[in-house]
């Protein structure tokens, strides 16, 4: 059974007297352990979809299910979010930040510490466990955020343009390391990005979204073998897929 | 802006309405809290009483004189210290000390030194206003973008031009804020001095009413002083807003 099922999801916002339809009739499903990315033009509701999936906003119509269970409120045990801004708590160390979700839940200290130290090691930051966010670079902070997202051992990790604020080289490296982490943990990842190259490089499937009101135009399977090296980004096959997606996005009616 | 106005009105209606209602419904002893209408009546009478007006005028003149003396003194001192930083460093501990220490505590000494007349109140008011305006004027001078001054000099601007075209607009917002705060503190100082030891003045009147349990008159006095001080504060704030904006635009390069 697919782990995520979205059927006919619609979301309307009222801004003053105007009704804005952010999402209309979005339907797709994600199998367990897959890496799925959503791309689309700016302002197509790309932010609304992950928030609906996370349960932080309620759908106007349609439904979202995780493991068959309907999502209408945040389910922190099952779904984690990583945002564009790492949003680490400035007064806590990296380790304390990773522990935070477990701390809130009352997980016992030694078990918590052990698990989170292991996670920091997984993202390559075990030497910085006792450093504060202001002592870390942007990329490092995002790694801490990823470790934090993994801490509650969720079924699904939502990543909303997590690398958008990083410079290109850091971004590329982070993508590569993210795949590493994903392969080691076997989590299901739902990733959102503006960057077509990033989407293709990282995912098993790319969902292409139309401009507002957002709907899924097409699902494209990415068949490059894993583990993927960064070289494939320059290959001809890669370029063809990229062009295909670009055409889909730029030619879809607004 | 609209939310603020709505907020004001709502809170005013709630408070004043609540006051009147509490008194009318006899929820509280009328001796402790006379009704708003009663207080307004008394206030109306007071405003027609020449002695009351004389006291009001006395207090107002004390505040005015103190402010008019303190402001230019403080602004020029602040300017001087801002331009001659070595002086500022020498005076820094003094100013710091004064600001950390509650000046009102020195009132008895003022009285020992100067008695309880017009002079003593004015001096007390001056000390309250002076330091706030000084600090703000200092900050105002320091806030002038030095590269702008250098550039102006390169372009051959005269001293007068630099002062009027660059210094003045840049300093104005902070100085106006300082003046407003100085006025508020000056009023507090003068009123305190009057309440503490004085023969005439609004402060003394209000304190006497308090000692004599004359609650309606007391409330009338409080309402009047509150309205007047809020009016002065808001007027100065408006000036801050408009003059500041005007000069900012005028000096925009």
């Amino acid at each position, binding site marked *: 059974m697919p782990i995520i099922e979205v059927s006919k999801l619609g979301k309307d916002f009222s801004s003053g007297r105007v009704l804005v339809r952010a999402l209309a009739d979005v339907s797709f499903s994600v199998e367990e352990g897959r890496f799925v990315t959503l791309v689309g033009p700016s302002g197509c509701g790309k932010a609304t979809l992950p928030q609906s999936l996370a349960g*932080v906003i309620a759908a106007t119509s349609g439904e979202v299910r995780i493991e068959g269970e309907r999502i209408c409120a945040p389910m922190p045990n099952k779904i984690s979010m990583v945002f564009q801004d790492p949003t680490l*708590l400035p007064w806590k160390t990296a380790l304390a930040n990773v522990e935070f979700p477990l701390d*809130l839940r009352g997980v016992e200290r030694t078990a918590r510490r052990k698990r989170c130290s292991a996670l920091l090691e997984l993202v390559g930051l075990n030497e910085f466990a006792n450093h504060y966010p202001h002592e870390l670079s942007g990329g490092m902070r995002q790694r801490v955020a990823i470790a934090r997202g993994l801490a509650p051992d969720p079924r699904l990790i939502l990543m909303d343009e997590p690398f958008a604020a990083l410079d290109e080289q850091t971004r590329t490296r982070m993508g590569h390391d993210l795949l590493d982490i994903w392969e080691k943990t076997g989590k299901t990842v739902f990733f959102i990005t503006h960057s077509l190259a990033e989407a293709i490089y990282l995912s098993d499937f790319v969902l292409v979204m139309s401009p507002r009101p957002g709907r899924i135009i097409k699902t494209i399977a990415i068949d490059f073998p894993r583990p993927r090296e960064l070289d494939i980004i320059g290959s001809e096959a890669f370029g063809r897929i990229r062009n295909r997606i670009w055409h889909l996005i730029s030619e879809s009616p607004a | 802006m609209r939310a603020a106005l709505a907020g004001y009105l709502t809170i005013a209606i709630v408070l004043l309405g609540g006051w009147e209602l509490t008194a009318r419904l006899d929820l509280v002893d009328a001796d*402790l809290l006379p009704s708003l209408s009663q207080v307004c009546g008394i206030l109306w009478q007071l405003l027609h009483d020449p002695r009351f007006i004389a006291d009001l005028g006395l207090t107002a003149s004390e505040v005015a004189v103190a402010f008019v003396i303190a402001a230019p003194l403080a602004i020029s001192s602040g300017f001087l210290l801002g331009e001659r930083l070595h002086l500022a460093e020498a005076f820094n501990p003094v100013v710091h000390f004064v600001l*950390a220490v*509650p000046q009102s505590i020195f009132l008895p000494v003022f009285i020992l030194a100067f008695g309880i007349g017009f002079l003593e109140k004015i001096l007390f008011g001056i000390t309250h206003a002076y330091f706030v305006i000084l600090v703000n004027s200092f900050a105002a001078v320091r806030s002038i973008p030095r590269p702008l001054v250098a550039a102006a000099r390169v372009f051959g601007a005269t001293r007068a031009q630099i002062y009027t075209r660059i210094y003045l607009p840049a300093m104005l917002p902070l100085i106006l804020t300082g003046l407003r705060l100085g006025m508020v503190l000056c009023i507090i100082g003068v009123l305190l001095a009057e309440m503490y030891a004085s023969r005439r003045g609004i402060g003394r009147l209000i304190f006497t009413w308090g000692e004599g349990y004359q609650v309606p008159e007391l409330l009338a006095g409080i309402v009047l002083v509150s309205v007047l001080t809020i009016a002065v504060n808001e007027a100065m704030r408006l000036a801050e807003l408009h003059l500041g904006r005007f000069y900012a635009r005028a000096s925009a390069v």
Partner: protein
Amino acid sequence: MMGSRTIKALVIAATIVALWEAVVRLGLVNQIILAAPSDIALAAAKDGGLFLRAFATTIMEIGAAILIAWTLGIGLGVVVGSLPVLAAATAPVLSSIFAIPLIILYPLLMAWLGIGPLSKIVFGVLSGFFPIALNTIDGVRAIERRYLLFARSVGATRLQTYVRIVFPLALPAMLSGLRIGTGLVVIGVIVTEMLASLGGIGFLISYHRTLFNTGHVYLGMVLALAIAVTVNIGLTWLDRRIGLWRMREQAEG
């Protein structure tokens, strides 16, 4: 072993005291206006017990007022700050009320609550409440949405969100409010003691002023200043400890 800075400070202090004594003894300043250190010491020797008792009363009043002002100010500040409509409506009103010289309300408190410690404590709370509440409201309002979104996504309960995320984030702003407000509490209590009281340091200062016992007046002032300075030092310590967060927060950006 004392550091060289401490020795330097002590030497300066000793010199000042010696000069002070000389200035008064040589008649350069009237003995009624300025008490010599020896006069102060004499007053302490004579009425030390009385002053200590008064000191204790004042400390008790200030302590109680600080506790209540902090609780009310922070509590109300967090609640109002969390409700954007309420905050937008009340903030301008609160800052306008700030212009009213609170001292004018004391005679009302006198009439209602008498001249014992209660009226002082209430006045102290009133004095400190507004800056604390205003700054807390600002601090809470300034919290970026992303932190609240994070709190929801990570499953924090309402209480957890307030205690573990909102409160620490608003802390730097809260602290400025606490500094200003607490200073005003101290001043408020001591000044109202001076105006009308049965006991406390302010009362003794006023009492001895009327008798021209300048030595006693200055002894009282020294004790009052000691309280003010100690509170200031305590707040600075608090500020420094929590101020580290401000740096981190700005860097995290």
